[in-house]
């Protein structure tokens, strides 16, 4: 028989001012199984807690009801109090007399007192059905997986590695560096992007704690925080990187050329290639779609008619270490991790959907990222900005902002954050390189919100760039030049500007495959396929999936400082996780009574956390079994179960029924 103690708090006058405490104490003392009822000026104060601890000992209480404020406020405080008195901390229930009663019924003392008594009766009948609960300890693998080798992933990997833990960094492309590696200079300081990025890339390659997997993708994720099991596909590179020294003779001699993805198609690369000279690892991969030998193989395989193309195999003949491996296949590696950081970054918006702007039709209409490659000293043109149509230097350059940003019609409602600033950067640099250039910027609003950004925008204006507030309705070709037609909304009239080049400030959108990755990781994503953090303000790098963190632009448009900061923040979370010897799990989770389970397995389908597995019993029945490390205790399965086999500790069917029933006793 339970011995229940009820402790009623005055909370100064917060409760006692409205509720007749004397009557409540008297009524509580007469409730079934209650052996002790007392009031207290402040239950949560140290003397108040001491009184509770003493009463537990004196009256040999086995369960406790605290009638005070909201459990969301002080449940943990009182759990510690009862634990200090030697009780299991989960043998406690709170009745919310303050937020749900005295504060909202201050106009009726009688009704509030009646309600307070009933709230206590509900808590008493529930606590009588509480069980001792014990948090479980599970071991953890102190090794982190970072998905995405852009600046954010690089920062995260380096920070974790420097904290003394092992990291595997997985990158889909043949090199790390991400979008930042493509940039020429960075706003607002105009640092050369490669100069600040490539040393970090080299640090990653050389760090003893980091294993770098390029040309690799995450395929499947199993397990839970501390104990993830991840399948990673290492794509065939056709080059044995263990043998390759990166001497470069193969990509210099390869006769087949293809547009370079890194240079946004403005330059060429060979079929065996490294994306750019400072690539990490500095070892090539073979692009089988363009490689002559592979074209030959496909021709033979598909039994096409005619003469097959020549076999080539120049790289194989020239390689001094015999690293070319035509037989190499995709390989699946399965590794264990304790935590995962997603830093998959962004993709630049494809502007072809803006038919009126003629991207893809007029060669002189280019994107911001193409401009970056043109301006870059290591780019295909060596930093010389010329018109793609005729190779001449442009005189008039028009920039259009918000291409794929703040545009409901194109389904991109958000602001991409960086475009205003990179356009200011382009305008400043163009003017520096070519003093006779005139820049025009069509803008909706200029958003320059971080440190030194507003000053940088002013600098662009002072350099001579003309800012026109309004949107562009069309671009047409006239006498070998472009004419940009748009509205100047400040003057309220249409303007036409002849231009030699038009730069579209394309926004950021999700990296391809984000939704699939989010599903594999059981992380939620929004309508734009951007990852959703656990809390946008207070938990910005965590996700609702414990042990999975997010960093960089995969959460939403971010500039370099924010990407670096979020990478470091995610790394700090991982380091804090790994500093524990064991992980403690919340015991208020679901359980399935295998004797009652009918094996319909509906619960496994509805569980939002995929926390219910199946198990075949010795008698051949298949039953559901809860993985307590994954379960978050929502109780969806309990209400779904047709057999009454599933239950939720702390909120069992019996407890909730007792609460309802107690109202009519």
């Amino acid at each position, binding site marked *: 028989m339970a011995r229940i103690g009820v402790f009623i708090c005055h909370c100064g006058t917060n409760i006692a001012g409205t509720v007749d405490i004397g009557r409540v104490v008297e009524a509580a003392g007469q409730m079934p199984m209650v052996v002790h009822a007392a009031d207290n000026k402040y239950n949560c104060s140290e003397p108040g807690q001491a009184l509770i601890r003493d009463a537990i000992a004196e009256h040999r209480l086995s369960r406790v009801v605290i009638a005070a404020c*909201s459990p969301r406020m002080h449940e943990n405080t009182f759990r510690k109090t009862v634990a200090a008195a030697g009780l299991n901390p989960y043998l406690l229930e709170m009745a919310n007399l303050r937020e749900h009663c005295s504060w909202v019924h201050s106009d009726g003392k009688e009704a509030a007192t009646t309600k307070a008594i009933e709230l206590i009766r509900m808590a008493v009948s529930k606590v009588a059905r509480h069980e001792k609960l014990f948090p479980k300890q599970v071991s953890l693998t102190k090794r982190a997986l970072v998905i995405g080798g852009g600046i954010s992933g690089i920062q995260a990997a380096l920070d974790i590695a420097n904290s003394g833990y092992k990291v595997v960094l997985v990158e889909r492309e043949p090199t790390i560096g991400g979008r930042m590696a493509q940039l020429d200079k960075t706003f607002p300081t105009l640092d050369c992007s490669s100069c600040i990025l490539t040393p970090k890339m080299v640090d990653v390659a050389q760090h003893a704690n980091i294993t770098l997997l390029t040309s690799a993708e995450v395929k499947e994720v199993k397990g839970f925080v501390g104990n993830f099991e991840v399948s990673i596909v290492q794509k065939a590179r056709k080059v044995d990187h263990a043998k390759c020294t990166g001497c470069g003779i193969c990509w210099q001699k390869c006769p087949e050329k293809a547009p370079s993805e890194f240079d946004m198609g403005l330059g060429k690369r060979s079929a065996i290639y490294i994306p750019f000279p400072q690539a990490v690892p500095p070892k090539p991969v073979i692009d089988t779609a363009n490689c002559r030998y592979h074209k030959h193989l496909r021709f033979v395989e598909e039994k096409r008619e005619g003469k097959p193309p020549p076999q080539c195999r120049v790289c194989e003949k020239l390689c001094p270490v015999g690293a070319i491996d035509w037989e190499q296949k995709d390989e699946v590696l399965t590794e264990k991790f304790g935590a995962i950081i997603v830093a998959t970054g962004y993709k630049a918006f494809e502007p072809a959907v803006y038919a009126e702007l003629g991207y893809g039709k007029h060669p002189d209409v280019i994107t911001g990222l193409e401009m970056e490659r043109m301006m870059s000293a290591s780019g295909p043109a060596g930093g010389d900005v010329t018109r793609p149509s005729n190779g001449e230097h442009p005189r008039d350059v028009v920039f259009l902002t918000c291409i794929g940003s703040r545009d409901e019609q194109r389904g991109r409602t958000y602001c991409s954050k960086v475009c205003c600033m990179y356009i200011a950067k382009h305008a400043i640099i163009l003017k520096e390189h070519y003093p006779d250039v005139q820049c025009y910027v069509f803008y909706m609003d200029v958003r320059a919100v971080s440190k030194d950004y507003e000053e940088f925008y002013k600098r662009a204006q002072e350099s001579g760039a003309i800012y026109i507030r309004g949107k562009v309705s069309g671009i047409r070709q006239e006498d070998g030049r472009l004419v940009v037609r748009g509205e100047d909304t400040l003057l309220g009239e249409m303007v036409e500007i002849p231009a030699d080049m038009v730069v579209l400030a394309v926004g950021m959108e999700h990296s391809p495959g984000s939704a699939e990755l989010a599903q594999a990781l059981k992380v939620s994503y929004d309508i734009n396929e951007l990852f959703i953090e656990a809390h946008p303000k207070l938990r910005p790098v965590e996700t609702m999936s414990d042990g999975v963190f997010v960093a960089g632009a995969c959460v939403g448009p971010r500039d370099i400082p924010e990407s670096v900061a979020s990478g470091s923040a995610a790394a700090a979370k991982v380091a804090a996780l790994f500093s524990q010897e064991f992980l403690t799990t919340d015991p208020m989770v679901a359980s399935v009574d295998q004797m009652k389970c009918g094996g319909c397995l509906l619960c496994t389908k509805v569980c939002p956390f995929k926390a219910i597995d199946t198990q075949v019993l010795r008698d051949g029945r298949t039953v559901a079994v809860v993985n307590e490390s994954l379960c978050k205790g929502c109780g969806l399965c309990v209400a779904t179960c047709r057999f009454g086999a599933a239950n939720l500790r702390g909120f069992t069917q019996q407890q909730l029924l007792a609460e309802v029933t107690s109202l009519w006793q």
Partner: protein
Amino acid sequence: MAIDFEPRIVGFLCNWCSYAGADMAGTARICYPSNIRVIRVPCSARIDPLLVVKAFQLGADGVLVAGCHPGDCHYTEGNYYSRRRFALLYPFLEYLGIEKGRLRLEWVSASEGRKFSHVVSSFTEGLVSLGPREKVPAEGALP
């Protein structure tokens, strides 16, 4: 109709949004009628429709079920399940002779103390005008 009729209301509130919203009503001292008795559950999806039926069987005049707004569920999708479950429960309650206005499903976020107070007030008023409820037939007495 009895003028002094005080309806008995059972409220099932999810811990993360609606219970917190009710707390918010308290912190902001937004008064509402004292007829409701709140049962805290982790998620609206935890609420077995049988608990609601049980409350009516015992004599509740109204049952309020409140959870996070669609899309805001702490457990990502629990409230969608409750929405469908209670859509199915309504015709069953009607079959039991319980009017539609006696079960109310609401979305109340943690910041909507005013909304919570408004919901309880208007629900209580609605129940007062509906009047005391006919008893649910005892088990076995159903056709």
